[in-house]
């Protein structure tokens, strides 16, 4: 009788600890709602003219609000929300443009939502066509969702140690149109984030065009009240 009671108590405690741990993990993962830091973008440009952008970035997952506060080449603030991007100079709105949802497709969103390891392709409806393994490296070939096979080409993904390392985008003819590489990962408050992203596209005469994005002083959930959130 005593043993039965002991087993029942032990079982209920184990179940309680399991759910407590499960919920704690959920809270820990869900707690990562915002990310910010310094950003530098260097690009060789499509015409050979070098381009440099410097500033700060802010992104909140719950509102899908993306803000770039640039200091170079000039002071501008880009606010991306839903399918609109607003450009401010000296606190005044100077331009509004329609875009695809930049926030949702950004590395910030994918990192906060814990979807960076598959680049959000699973959620977007892509399916795995082929998987190759070589030690800790895994190369996965993704095919577009049904209905988009005639519009989108394959995406080949390289993961190392379960982290997204590279992406190759192909067009419908199998020609490579873009490569992306994610490097120098850091782990911050439950969020795995790459501090360096290299993008390689190709000009009309097949010359590589490089665009390197570097992040510094990245912080998770260190929301700064006031200024940036005055922008709608």
């Amino acid at each position: 009788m005593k043993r039965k009671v002991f087993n029942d108590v032990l079982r209920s405690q184990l179940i309680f600890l399991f759910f407590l741990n499960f919920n704690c993990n959920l809270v820990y993962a869900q707690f990562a709602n915002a990310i910010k830091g310094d950003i530098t973008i260097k690009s060789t440009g499509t015409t050979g003219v070098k381009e440099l952008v410097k500033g700060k970035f802010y992104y909140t997952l719950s509102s899908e609000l993306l803000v770039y506060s640039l200091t170079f080449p000039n002071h501008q603030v880009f606010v991306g929300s839903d399918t609109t991007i607003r450009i401010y100079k000296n606190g005044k709105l100077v331009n509004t443009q329609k875009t695809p949802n930049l926030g949702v497709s950004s590395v910030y969103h994918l990192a906060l939502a814990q979807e960076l390891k598959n680049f959000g392709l699973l959620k977007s409806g892509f399916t795995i066509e082929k998987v190759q393994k070589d030690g800790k490296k895994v190369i996965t070939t993704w095919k577009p969702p049904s209905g988009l096979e005639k519009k989108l080409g394959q995406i080949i993904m390289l993961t190392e140690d379960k982290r997204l390392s590279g992406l190759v985008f192909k067009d419908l003819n199998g020609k490579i149109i873009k490569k992306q590489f994610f490097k120098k990962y850091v782990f911050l408050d439950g969020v795995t984030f790459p501090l360096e992203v290299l993008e390689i596209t190709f000009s009309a005469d097949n010359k590589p065009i490089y665009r390197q994005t570097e992040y510094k002083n990245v912080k998770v959930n260190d929301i700064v009240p006031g200024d940036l959130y005055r922008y709608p």
Partner: protein
Amino acid sequence: MKKAFLLFAFVLGFATLSSANDAELFSYNENEVAAVMSDVNFSSSDLGSVNSLEPNVLVSGSLEPLGIPAFIWGCVGGIAGVAIVHFIEEDKDETKMALWGCVAQSVVGTIVYIVAFASAANAATSGI
């Protein structure tokens, strides 16, 4: 047995070759990237200006809810059309255009009403 072994070796070799090709997709000239992206190259005053952060993504265009010009929204929808433009676009210029459309609708409507009323009155008096 020999044929089966040769077939197996061929398939294995082909699979290995395919694997090697896919891995090569991720290769690039790291030295070239390091040289091009060095801080020295980007300290020049010949840097071009950046019009946007996402030049391949941003598409400029007029602001039109459902592709319908704001003026038409105001003209056809009246106050409701102005409200739709205002709350969707949140742009003062577009709201003004919708408002002008509403005003145009009112003016045209008034003229039509006056003309119709005058015609009806004329017809009524001539019939007496």
